[in-house]
């Protein structure tokens, strides 16, 4: 009730004038040219950070970046990501299979935030529609692309400190492996 009293301060005239002013505003809009871009005829270039279809990128050497750490599936609020991690020859961890159910995906981008290897990325490509819900289920083959996407130079395994066949101590900022039998003090 108190609210009304406060609001009533301007009086009926002011109220009516305000009402009229708002009608005028909408009316002037009516005669302006629509801003709409007609979509299929004209496709607006979207920023790289737009969040639409998800891809799995590769590192510079062409290897899969995904290490199947389950962080994306762990953080996904709609549980649309599932995978099975496995060990590749040489000790590299990778996804034996990797599946995103785009029918569930809400394109929130949390998976991309969580990804420690920059493997999973959202792209501006939003145009995908299917008739059958199961056609929205994308497997690793469907998700893998042959480029590095954003920050294509980063290679997790160069910094991770795990041996994937190149030997210990060969990556960025690593000392050669400790030789405990060394005679040096």
């Amino acid at each position: 009730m108190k609210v009304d009293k406060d609001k009533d301060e301007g009086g009926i005239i002011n109220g009516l004038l305000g009402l009229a002013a708002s009608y005028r505003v909408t009316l002037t809009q009516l005669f302006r040219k629509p801003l709409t871009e007609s979509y299929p005829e004209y496709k607006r270039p979207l920023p790289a950070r737009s969040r639409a279809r998800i891809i799995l990128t590769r590192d510079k050497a062409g290897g899969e970046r995904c290490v199947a750490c389950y962080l994306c599936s762990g953080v996904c609020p709609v549980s649309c990501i599932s995978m099975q991690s496995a060990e590749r020859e040489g000790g590299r961890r990778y996804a034996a299979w990797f599946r995103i159910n785009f029918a569930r995906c809400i394109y929130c981008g949390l998976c991309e935030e969580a990804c420690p290897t920059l493997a999973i990325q959202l792209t501006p490509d939003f145009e995908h529609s299917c008739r059958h819900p199961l056609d929205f289920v994308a497997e690793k083959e469907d998700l893998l692309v042959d480029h590095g996407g954003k920050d294509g130079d980063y290679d997790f395994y160069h910094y991770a400190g795990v041996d994937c066949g190149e030997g210990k101590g060969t990556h960025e900022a690593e000392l050669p492996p400790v030789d405990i039998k060394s005679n040096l003090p």
Partner: protein
Amino acid sequence: MPYLIIDNRHIQVPRGTTVIDAAERLGIMIPRFCYLKVLGAVGACRMCAVMFEAGPVKGLQMSCMVQAADGMRVSTTHPEAVAFRRQIIEWLMINHPHDCPVCDEGGHCLLQDETISGGHSRRRYTGAKRTYPDQDLGPLVQHEMNRCIQCYRCVRFYQEYAGYRDLGVMGIASRIYYGRFSDGALESPFSGNLIDICPTGVYTDRPSRFLARRWDLQRADSICLHCSLGCNTVAGAHYRAVIRQESRENVRVNGSFICDRGRYGHAYANLAERPRQSRLDGEPAGWREAAREAAARLKRIAAAAGHSAIAVLGSARNSLETQIMLRYLSHHAQWRPPRFFVNGSEARSTAAVVARLDSRLAAGLPDLEEADFLLAVGVDPVNDAPMLALAMRQAARKGAKIVVLDPRPVELPFAFDLLSAGLGDLPAALAVLVKTAVSQAGTDGCEAQEKAFLAALPGRVPDEKLQGQLGQAGGWLAASRRPAIICGSAIAGPELAGLAADLALLLQTGKTPSRLFYLLPGPNAFGAGLLQRGSRYFPSLLQDIEKGGVRALLVVENDPFFRYPDQDRLHSALGKLELLMVLDYLPSRAARAAHIFLPGATVFEAGGSFINNCGLLQYAAPVHEGGIPLAQVSGGSHPPRAHAPAPGSEKCPSAYEALLFLANELAIRPPTMDASPWSLLPEDFPGQAELLAHPYPTDGLQLLPRLSEAESLQTPVNLPTSGPAAGALTVLRVEQTFGSEELSCYAEPLRQLAGPPLALLHGADADRAGVRDGEQLCFEIGGEKVELALQVTNRMAPGQLIIPHHYALGRAACRLPAVVAQAELRGLTGQDSPDLPQAITES
């Protein structure tokens, strides 16, 4: 009882409690890396620093190194302490790799938690990181030294706590290295605990490597079924496969650890060859269809040949619910009472144990740790029940004297005295030992009955050396204040179990609070023992089958072929049956031979209650729904998209539910509609009232039959004092840590560790037979050949031939009777000469 203040909260703790533990009691988790309650404090990581503001100790101190004292005021959040702990984390992280995403520890990593909770997020150290080469530590544990933060937990557990000496710390300064001398499998059967203990990912679970994150696992509290100790575990399943098992702390049973057999023995639940399809006369059939047909045939047989033509065989791995249902069903259908043991000796031993173990005597593993003298008879702890060895080691570390009386070359991770007595001599030797002890300690206060009993015990064994050793051990026993007798049932018969109880009672009357600890032949053997009262043993049942008195046999989660000595007899007998119905989850021979087969559910799918060797009833919760593991459905690539269940993946009812279904079909209605298993309990079942009131006690329920005084000291004292005639060998078929237990022998990594089976022979016998160590021996048994490498040792009792139950020995080895006298040995080999060389022919 010191009274102190931690973070403005008051607490009183027992004397000797460290401040870190006192804080934990208040729910204040002081960060730590090197400290583990069971391993004690060493103060190496410096992570648990807190501020002592008042009291006998002042200033910043490690809370694990300071014992709580009166008047202490401690602040865990003092800025100086927080700053110091932050600094410690930063120091620890300068060399820690950036590999959490590919580390299996990620998600349940103490280092991760404490780094994040400590707020360390920016790297100030600009130098390069130290790296280490890794080692191959065998099929169970994966090594990744780069992650190490040098907390020393692993060596302290491995060397100090568990007593194995092949993993240690090498190097110095910031080049400390934890590992073995060279690549190779860890020797300790407790190596899996390194995975739980390591605060980061240096040791990770190898069989489940890269399979799942902890947060994705379906986890539930479970019970280990691989021996009778009933250790507590947490099982984790992912994508319909049980992939990991961890220990669960229970101070009444296993403490904080479990053995590797328990940790990795769960593979049987995920086997590709696990039967998941019901079969009706060899043809696949629907579960209900098969079960209905079974009921129909049972009715027909009962009508034609009488109710007693139907017999039931349960097992020591049945859940208690299943056992109760079996008994209820057979009672109300007027079938023969259920049998639970294939081996008659096991059945009698278990009966003796159940009859003799009462709460005055029963000890748990923690009680053994407190004992000052341990006498183990007929037990090879590391092979029979590994966690027993760990408990015994804790007693040894506290200074207990330990004596093992066994025919086998027992190896234990601590100093002990091995008294080698042949299998037949065990009861007598035990009697001599205790007689010596009691007479040395004095028999004052003994009633006449006890004195008579004592007098009737044999005073000597034939072997002079053994006699001397027994005398010495008797002296130690007499001097001890808290002795415990550990008695096995794997090789020794019921006489030994009875005698052990008698002796424990006798010692107790002699004012020594002695305890008794039995091992049993299965995770729920105790339950079977309680419910098998009045029923005869399997061999007699076999006779009835052969005579045609029994025409239908219902086998629930058992495989008579796995252990029954005479395979041919068993085979022909079961062939005579009109109906052999098998309910199991293992791809067993019996399952293949069944007319009607119903697939069962494992403990991970159905859950169940089990009574361990000390009479403690514990409940294992179901972990997951079950079904064919996704990896098998998909064959490694991505699983099918459709939601339809894969063929054969319908959820298998538990044995209890299957029997309930059968009972309904047979119009045997349980008294209550909800059919709580406990409502079907026989009235003389111990703890029945409590079970009805609290059906699933969370912390276990001690179920020990009440024994009257009159029941004590009842063993017939005319004990055998010698084994088979000279020149003959007693064949012992023994358990092995890995590769011999019915369930865990399906686990591939454990099979790798089990290695090829060995036959053990005493040096003197080997000399007589003219065979040498390492020789390949060929045993011919009923036309089948078993090849075994011979190991000659003088640490065992002469006159025995020791052969492990081993998955690789297959059915031929099962034919060896547990004990062969001379004549039988001859018959076994089909030769007439009593001499050894004929029994063992060189290949």
